[in-house]
C-alpha cells in the first residue's frame, strides 16, 4: 500500500489547517455545479482509465435529457443540482473540534445504542487515532479474505486494481439510462465499495463497510458492486445504526448485485441518516437505486431497516433471470415527525420456477407518510413462477399515513401470486397491558414494534439485529398519539 494509515491520519490533521482555503479549482474541491468539465476533473483526480470517463460522460449526456421522477408519494423541494459540489476530497474531515462540541442529544442516542465511547468518537470524527486502532482489525481481516481470493475494496481501488471486473459488470444491472438518479450517480460517483467472491468460495465473515470506513467514508454519490461468482456465498452489511449527520442533503447511490449460477448474496442495510428536525426542517434525501440479477439457481436476499432520511426513495429489486432463482425482500421502514418514505421492491421473474418473497413492514409515526410500492412481474417464459407478498402497515398516530401500491403483472398463467396486506394502529390496550406488567411506555412500544417486525429482524445477522432493535425503539420515542 502506497498510502499508509499514518499518512492518512496526518492528512486529516492537516485538513483542519486548510479548512476554508480549499475552494480553488486546482485543489481538492470542485466548484459547485455540473458540467462535462467537472466530470473530466473528477475522473482525472481519480486517475481513471478512458473507458470509465467515457461512461461517465455518456451518463451525463443522458441525465441532462432526463426529468426527475415525480410518481413517488413524496413531496419535497427539489434539490438544485447547480448548488452541489460534486467532488471534495477527502470526505473524512473532522465535523467537530472536540468531543465536548458534539451535540449532547447525539451522544445520548449513541449511548442508548450501546456504541462504545471509542466508536462514538470515531463516528463523530473527534478521534483521529481511531485510524490506528482499527488498522490491526482491518489488516487481519484483509489477510484472511486475500487467502480466499476475495476482493473487498473501495470502488476507486477496484478501478485501478481490477479494471477488467469493473468494466465487465458495472452498469449491467443498473444501466445509466435506468432513471434520473442512477444516471446522475453514473456520471459523478466518487467512490463506493467493490466486492468479488471467486467461484465456489463461501465468504467466512460478514463483509461490512465498517472495516473500510477509514478508506474513504460514505459518499454522497456512492456506488457499490458485488459480484458473487458461481457457487459462492456472501453476506454484505451496509450502513450503520449510529446517527449520521451529514451536510449533504442529496444522496443518490447505486448498488448492483450479480449472483452467477448457484451463488447467493445476502445484502443487509441499516439506514439511519439524519431525518430532519421535529418540524421537518433539513434531513437527507435518500434516492437510491438497488438491484440484483440472479443467474441459474442463484439467490439474492435484500434485508433493510430504514429509519433515517427526510425523504426515502428506494426499491431494492431482483431480476430473476436464471431458472430456479430466488429473490427475497425483507423490509422495515420507520417514519416519524415529517419523514416520507416511498420504498418497496421489484421482482422480475424471467426464468422458470423462479420464486420471490416480499415481507414489508411499514411503521408511521408523527405526521409522516410511509408508502410501500412494489412490482411483481411474471414474464411469458417464467413457467411455474411463484410470489408471496405481505405488506403490513402500523400507524402510531392518527396524523400519520400508510399507503400501499402493489403492482402485479402476470403474463404466464402457470404462476402463483399471493398478496396479503394489513393496516393496523398500535393498540392502546397493548400498551396498557404492558404497563400493567411494569413495563413503561417507551419499552412497551419497543417490544410491540419489535414483535411486529420480527420476521424481518430475524433475517439480519445477529449483531446487526440487536442494534436494529434498539434503533427502532429510539426512532419511535414519544411517538404514540
Amino acid at each position, binding site marked *: 500500500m502506497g498510502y499508509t494509515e499514518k499518512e492518512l491520519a496526518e492528512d486529516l490533521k492537516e485538513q483542519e489547517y486548510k479548512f476554508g482555503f480549499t475552494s480553488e479549482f486546482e485543489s481538492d474541491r470542485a466548484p459547485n455545479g455540473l458540467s462535462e468539465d467537472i466530470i473530466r476533473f473528477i475522473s482525472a483526480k481519480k486517475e481513471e482509465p478512458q473507458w470509465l470517463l467515457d461512461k461517465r460522460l455518456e451518463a451525463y449526456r443522458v441525465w441532462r435529457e432526463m426529468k426527475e421522477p415525480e410518481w413517488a408519494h413524496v413531496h419535497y423541494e427539489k434539490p438544485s443540482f447547480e448548488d452541489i459540489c460534486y467532488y471534495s476530497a477527502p470526505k473524512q474531515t473532522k465535523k467537530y473540534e472536540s468531543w465536548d462540541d458534539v451535540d449532547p442529544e447525539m451522544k445520548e442516542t449513541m449511548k442508548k445504542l450501546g456504541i462504545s465511547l471509542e466508536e462514538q468518537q470515531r463516528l463523530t470524527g473527534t478521534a483521529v487515532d481511531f485510524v490506528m486502532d482499527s488498522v490491526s482489525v482491518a489488516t487481519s481481516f484483509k489477510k484472511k479474505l486475500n487467502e480466499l481470493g476475495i476482493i473487498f475494496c473501495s470502488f476507486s481501488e477496484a478501478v485501478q486494481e481490477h479494471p477488467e471486473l469493473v468494466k465487465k459488470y458495472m452498469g449491467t444491472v443498473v444501466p445509466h439510462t435506468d432513471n434520473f438518479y442512477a444516471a446522475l450517480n453514473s456520471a459523478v460517483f466518487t467512490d463506493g465499495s467493490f466486492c468479488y467472491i471467486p467461484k465456489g468460495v463461501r465468504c467466512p465473515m460478514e463483509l461490512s463497510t465498517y472495516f473500510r470506513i477509514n478508506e474513504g467514508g460514505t459518499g454522497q454519490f456512492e456506488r457499490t458492486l458485488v459480484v458473487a461468482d458461481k457457487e459462492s456465498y456472501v453476506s454484505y452489511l451496509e450502513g450503520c445504526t449510529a446517527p449520521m449527520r451529514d451536510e449533504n442533503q442529496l444522496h443518490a447511490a447505486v448498488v448492483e448485485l450479480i449472483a452467477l449460477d448457484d451463488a447467493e448474496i445476502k445484502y443487509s442495510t441499516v439506514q439511519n441518516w439524519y431525518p430532519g428536525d421535529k418540524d421537518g426542517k433539513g434531513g437527507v434525501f435518500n434516492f437510491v437505486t438497488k438491484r440484483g440479477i440472479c443467474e441459474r439457481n442463484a439467490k439474492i436476499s435484500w434485508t433493510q431497516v430504514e429509519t433515517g432520511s427526510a425523504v426515502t426513495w428506494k426499491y431494492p429489486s431482483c431480476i430473476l433471470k436464471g431458472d430456479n432463482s430466488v429473490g427475497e425482500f425483507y423490509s422495515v421502514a420507520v417514519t416519524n415527525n415529517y419523514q416520507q418514505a416511498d420504498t418497496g421492491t421489484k421482482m422480475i421473474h424471467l426464468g422458470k420456477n423462479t420464486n420471490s418473497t416480499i415481507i414489508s413492514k411499514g411503521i408511521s409515526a408523527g405526521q409522516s407518510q410511509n408508502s410501500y410500492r412494489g412490482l411483481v412481474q411474471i414474464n411469458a417464459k417464467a413457467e411455474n413462477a411463484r410470489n408471496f407478498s405481505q405488506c403490513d402497515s402500523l400507524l402510531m398516530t392518527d396524523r400519520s399515513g400508510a399507503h400501499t401500491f402493489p403492482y402485479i403483472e402476470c403474463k404466464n398463467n402457470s404462476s402463483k401470486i399471493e398478496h396479503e396486506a394489513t393496516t393496523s394502529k398500535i393498540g392502546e390496550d397493548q400498551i396498557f397491558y404492558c404497563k400493567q406488567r*411494569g413495563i413503561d411506555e417507551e419499552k412497551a412500544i419497543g417490544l410491540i414494534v419489535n*414483535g*411486529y417486525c420480527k420476521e424481518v429482524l430475524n433475517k439480519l445477522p445477529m449483531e446487526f439485529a440487536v442494534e436494529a432493535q434498539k434503533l427502532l425503539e429510539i426512532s419511535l420515542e414519544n411517538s404514540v398519539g
Partner: protein
Amino acid sequence: MLSIKNLHASVEEGAEILKGLNLEVHPGEVHAIMGPNGAGKSTLASVLAGKDGYEVTEGSVDFDGKDLMELETEDRAKEGLFLAFQYPVEIPGVSNINFLKTALNEIREYKGEEALSAKEFMSKVREASKVVELDPKLASRSVNTGFSGGEKKRNEIFQMAMLNPKLAILDETDSGLDIDALRIVSDGVNKLRSKDNAVIIITHYQRLLDYIQPDFVHVLADGKIVKTGPKELALELEDKGYDWIAEEKETV
C-alpha cells in the same frame, strides 16, 4: 394493604361510575366483589390499575402507604399490583418469555434487585407453568396470540405466578372458562395465596367462589359497596339476585 376511601371516578368528560366507594383489604385476605352489570366492577379494576380514560374526582386510595392514584400505571405494577385482564391482549411477535422477562426485570430493578440470570428465569418459568398446568410450549409462543379463551386466562395466572404481586385483582377471570379450566385456574390462584398477599376477585357468578373461598363478599351497586358479608352472602346472591339488597337499603 389497600385502603379505598370515598372513591369517586368518572369516564373522562362523562358520567360518574364510582360514587363514593370504600374498601379495606389486608394481607392474607381474599375479597370477592359481585354486582349487577354496569355497577362499576370493571371500572374499579381499571381505575386501580391506572388505565387511561378515567378521572378520579374525589377520594383516596392508599396502597401500602403510597398514594396509588399518584403513581404511574407501570409503577403501580412495580409496587405489586397485578390485574388479571378480563380480555387478555394479544401482542404478536413478542414471546411470552421475552415479555415476562422484561416485566420481571423492570420490577426487580425498581426494587433494587439484580436482573435474573437466564437459568434462574427459566427455572421460575417451569415452576410457574406448573401452577396452572400451562403447556411449556405456550410460554415461548407470542403473548396470547392465537390462544384459546381458556389458555389466555391461564396465561394471566401464569404471569401472576411469575410476578408474585402483593395484590392481585382478577377481573372476571372465570368468564368463558369451562369447568376443567375453571378448576385449574382456581387451583392456581389458591396455590399462590399466602399470608402476605391479597386477592380481589371480580365476578358475576358464585361458581368461582366454590373454588376460591373468599373471606369477604361485597356487593357493588351503582358505584358503591352496598353490602358486605361472609362467603355465604355469595350463595344468597346466587339464589335471590341483587334486587333485594336495594330494597333492604331503602327500608333502612
